[in-house]
């Protein structure tokens, strides 16, 4: 793992807690999904938690993030309450989008989450646009676009990077490269060049980061966020990671032949949560007791969120036309 001596212990603890919160929430979703009460597709981010945690650690409540179909982790790391999140998955009026959005369209303006798009590449220009607004207003906010390796193939990626570089917008393009888009491996979609290398064509820093090492993410993100806040423009981060579950749904996909088993197993070894758990234990950042009570606290939060989510009312048919305009 990356060096950490410049990071206050409180931050290290918080990083671990955020990763745990994401992991446990996604695990719980996997467990509950077969009940068939969550009646929408879920794209779980298990295995990718370090990115959301490490990057959002640098963001203020008012900073903006934009994300994709796979956004639970980003929203949690940005501070979204688990209750409206769970309620949204359960399609309830108490959900963050009153049940209109489901798992793919989370939102929480109070925490700087103006919405997520399940159209691949869709959120990239939105983040650049939010950064343009911040720049025009001079409000000092930073915007982040989280998106996948697949999304880096869309025209919007190029168009957004070009504009952000031109205007030196305070935006971070955080490309979570998990090497797959649905079941297509990256080599079937892109030439064999690091995605981070695209940045130089726009005169923008591009950084390749081990996305499973939360400290590496933390350091690279700090630089990027600082640069953005200082008015020095955007950064492209390529964060290498791996998703454990199938593209969609709570099951693994290795048996179906979508991905090689040995690749999958090698990545399981590099579990971002375990790696960092080991680290905080080894370095006496958190004692076993502290970890235990952290776990308990997060589990309780999730319990409550699920109860809240299940209990909420379903939007009535009479509300079908609400919010269209």
């Amino acid at each position: 793992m990356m060096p950490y001596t410049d990071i206050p212990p409180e931050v290290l603890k918080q990083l671990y807690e955020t990763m745990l919160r994401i992991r446990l929430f996604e695990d719980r979703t996997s467990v509950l999904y077969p009940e068939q009460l969550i009646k929408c597709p879920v794209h779980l981010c298990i295995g990718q938690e370090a990115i959301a945690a490490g990057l959002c650690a640098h963001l203020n409540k008012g900073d903006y993030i934009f994300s994709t179909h796979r956004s639970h982790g980003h929203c949690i790391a940005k501070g979204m309450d688990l209750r409206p999140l769970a309620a949204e998955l359960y399609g309830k009026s108490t959900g963050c989008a009153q049940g209109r959005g489901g798992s793919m369209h989370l939102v929480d303006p109070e925490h700087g989450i103006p919405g997520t798009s399940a159209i691949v590449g869709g959120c990239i220009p939105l983040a650049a646009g939010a950064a343009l607004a911040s720049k025009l207003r001079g409000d000092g906010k930073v915007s982040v676009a989280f998106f996948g390796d697949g999304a880096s193939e869309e025209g919007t990626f190029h168009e957004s990077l070009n504009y952000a570089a031109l205007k030196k917008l305070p935006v971070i393009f955080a490309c979570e490269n998990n090497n797959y888009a649905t079941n297509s491996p990256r080599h079937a979609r892109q030439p064999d060049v690091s995605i981070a290398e695209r940045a130089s064509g726009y005169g923008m820093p591009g950084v390749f980061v081990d996305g499973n090492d939360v400290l590496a993410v933390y350091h690279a993100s700090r630089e990027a966020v600082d640069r953005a806040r200082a008015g020095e423009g955007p950064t492209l981060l390529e964060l290498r990671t791996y998703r454990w579950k199938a593209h969609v749904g709570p099951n693994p996909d290795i048996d179906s032949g979508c991905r090689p088993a040995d690749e999958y197993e090698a990545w399981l070894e590099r579990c971002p949560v375990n790696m960092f758990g080991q680290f905080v234990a080894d370095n006496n950042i958190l004692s076993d007791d502290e970890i235990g009570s952290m776990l308990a606290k997060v589990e309780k939060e999730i319990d409550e969120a699920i109860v809240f989510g299940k209990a909420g009312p379903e939007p009535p048919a009479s509300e079908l036309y609400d919010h269209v305009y």
Partner: protein
Amino acid sequence: MPWTKLQADDSRSEVVFHQARLSQREITYREAIKEALTQALEMDPNVFLIGEGIDDPGGVFGTTVGLKEKFGKDRVMDSPIAENGMTGIAMGAAITGMRPVFIHMRVDFLPMCMDQIINHAAKWSYMTGGRVKVPLTIRAVIGRGWGSAAQHSQSLQALFAHIPGLRVLMPASPYDAKGLLLGSIAGNTPTIIIEHRWLYDQKEGVPEEPYVIHPGKGLVRREGSDVTIVACSYMVYESLRAADELAKEGIRAEVIDLRSLLPLDEDLIIGSIEKTGRLVVADTGWKACGISAEVAAVAAERAIGSLKAPVRRICLPFAPTPACHSLEQAYYPTHTDIVSAVKGIR
């Protein structure tokens, strides 16, 4: 936000065309748009304009000339040629507090950004349970003539009028151009405003003070009792010309200017058909699944008992726009086509 102070002017809804208060100064459609943009920029620091070359000497047919000089390059911005990304960027600014106006020299460039318009802007309010609104105005111009050809002359309003979550406006007169544009910028709904290149020199009495016209209201431009001609944009003028011709033969045509395609002023249309019993629809675009289809369908749903004759639609021939002069001349329907259509159903 100063917008709420703006009064909607509903007084004109029943006023007959070109009968502007004489005390008013007359300005062109072009000037009316520029005045609306100027006033919006003055009233609200969150308003900005963006678009390819909008700050150049031509200034989008004169509608943005001098605005960069007046408001600075942070509020009147040139843009890369990247319609989909730039629409997303404008929208991203809109959902975080700004009120952008994105300007296109041709409607034909909107197919490049359908994704951000249809999948994003139109859906955002709904998908976020109404928590995040998209105050984004998109202006685009219909080209016509001088060999503009297939890729620079389309009238694609129907593609937007099909999509819930959008508003689609086609002002035909200077007064409406100003009020609808200000209304859109002041509103919280993504709105597509489609102008027609041949309208910029139209003149009309237009109040100097800012005012808004809410979407969803059409106008009776000319009253009549024998046939209803429903038209939009430039075709309003061809329809009025047709009404003049018809009047010479004693046929009194009522001409309705839709102004707003989405929402559509169904009641106005139906009321007129109930009076006249006959319907002709004149659109600047294609027929199939166009706004002419929607108007005819509404008539078939709501006024079938009043219709004394078949509905007629005057639209573009179902072909791309030809470049050459001879075919271009044949391509565009005129008032004479409307006159024949009306006579054909009498």
